[in-house]
């Protein structure tokens, strides 16, 4: 299999929303690619990523992830969910649990249900969790509680949890929006590097063009729920970026929408 994500004419509106969140989106991402979703706030980046993670229903079109078609009306089967890892924008960690416990939480979908419930990870699970911690440079924080960590450290825990899941596709929603530029570079290098080392496909969203260019092979611009451009990172030009971030102005007869 060499196609990780295939999207055909995807349309989605949030329940009660008047403006479509995603409109006529079509794209294909190959296995092992590292792709950035670039666009302003509210462009539909988070919506697209959550949809690919199987957390949104009620869309129209055809979407397949890792070779399996998604059902527009119900969540994917639980067994397939560990294959897609997700790094949440606000980390989504259990604050009162330790770093190791949070990373082991990424293994829960891979464990036998009873073993998961009883909380007895196998040596194999522990080994994978510890490797993820080491890869993320936070092995020394394993026994610390998450509520005692800094933002950058939390981001690394969130990535380690995702890696412990052994995903074949890594989706990351603004994984560096809470970090200063130096930390942001380090974390993106870690994320894309770990994905590459594991042969996994990576799709991350960002609103910082320079970071997208440095860490992705390909950049998809998204604005007003539509794909504005889809180019190799080396071909990302200033004009397209400027157009992407141009203030959204009301256009007569169309309402709030970007011109593509």
């Amino acid at each position, binding site marked *: 299999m060499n196609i990780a994500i295939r999207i055909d004419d995807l349309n989605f509106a949030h329940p009660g929303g008047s403006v479509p969140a995603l409109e006529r989106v079509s794209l294909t991402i190959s296995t092992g690619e590292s792709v950035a979703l670039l666009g302003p706030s509210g462009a539909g980046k988070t919506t697209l990523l959550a949809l690919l993670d199987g957390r949104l229903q009620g869309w129209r079109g055809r979407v397949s992830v890792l070779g399996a078609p998604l059902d527009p009306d119900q969540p994917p089967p639980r067994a397939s*969910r560990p294959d897609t890892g997700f790094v949440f924008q606000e980390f989504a960690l259990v604050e009162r649990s330790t770093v190791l416990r949070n990373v082991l939480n990424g293994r*829960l979908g891979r464990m036998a249900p009873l073993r*998961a419930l009883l909380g007895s990870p196998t040596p194999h699970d522990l080994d994978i969790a510890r490797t993820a911690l080491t890869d993320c440079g936070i092995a020394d924080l394993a026994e610390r509680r998450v509520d005692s960590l800094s933002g950058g450290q939390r981001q690394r825990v969130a990535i380690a949890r995702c890696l412990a899941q052994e995903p074949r596709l890594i989706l990351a929603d603004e994984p560096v929006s809470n970090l200063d530029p130096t930390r942001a570079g380090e974390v993106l290098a870690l994320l894309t590097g770990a994905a590459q080392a594991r042969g996994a496909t990576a799709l991350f969203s960002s609103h910082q063009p320079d970071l997208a260019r440095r860490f992705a092979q390909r950049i998809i611009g998204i604005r007003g729920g539509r794909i504005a451009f889809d180019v190799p990172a080396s071909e990302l030009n200033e004009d397209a970026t400027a157009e992407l971030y141009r203030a959204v102005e009301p256009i007569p007869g169309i309402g709030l929408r970007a011109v593509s």
Partner: protein
Amino acid sequence: MAFRGFGGFTTSGLIAAAILWSFATTDVELSRLMSAGPRIADFLGRMFPPDPTVMAEIKKGSAETLRIAILGTLGAVILSVPLGILASETMVSPAVFRPIRTLLAFIRAIPLILVAMLMVGAVGLGPLPGIIAVAFHATGMLAKFYAEAIDGVSRAPIAALESAGAGPLVRLRYAIWPQMAPVVARDTIFRFELNLRESLILGIVGAGGIGFYIQTYVRSFQYDKAASVTIAVVVMVIAIEAINVALRRRFA
């Protein structure tokens, strides 16, 4: 403080009417208070000095009340864990949590002393009906608190575990429980304190505990002994409250 709800003219009128009605329609003869002075003095005089010879009864009664509160709380916790899960929006559908919440409201509406009287009728005198009554009565509140604790946690880690492929019970164990544990500890301690206070009077209906001795001594006009038992009750309540304040600080 917000007294805005009482600001309306209609509300004030209703409250005034309720108070006037209460005075007018029951036999509240305030004049009887005037002549009660000497009798209250006599009553208090006979309570003093408290009779210290009832130490054995006090120990036995206090221990039984404490046991009723501890076992009653344990029973309530055991009942409240499943009922709390079934009453939470996070864990089950409205078709399940709505009827369960109604059931819990119904349980809360039945006074403890009434449950205790029914239980004495059902299982006979002694601490057992008291324990059952406390467990039943406390479940109405505790299960509601547990459900609120489940629904009060941050949703993001639950979504993260679901995305990782964890089932509902595993999510409860690893995403919800760590967040709700301090709330559960606090609520359970609070309910234990209430159970102890409320179970002090269970002896009056024959459901065990120290209340039995208060009733016996008052009925047989041994006010000095009743005074000793009352002092013991006050000491016990203050001690438990002090312990609870310390525990609550620890779980903050």
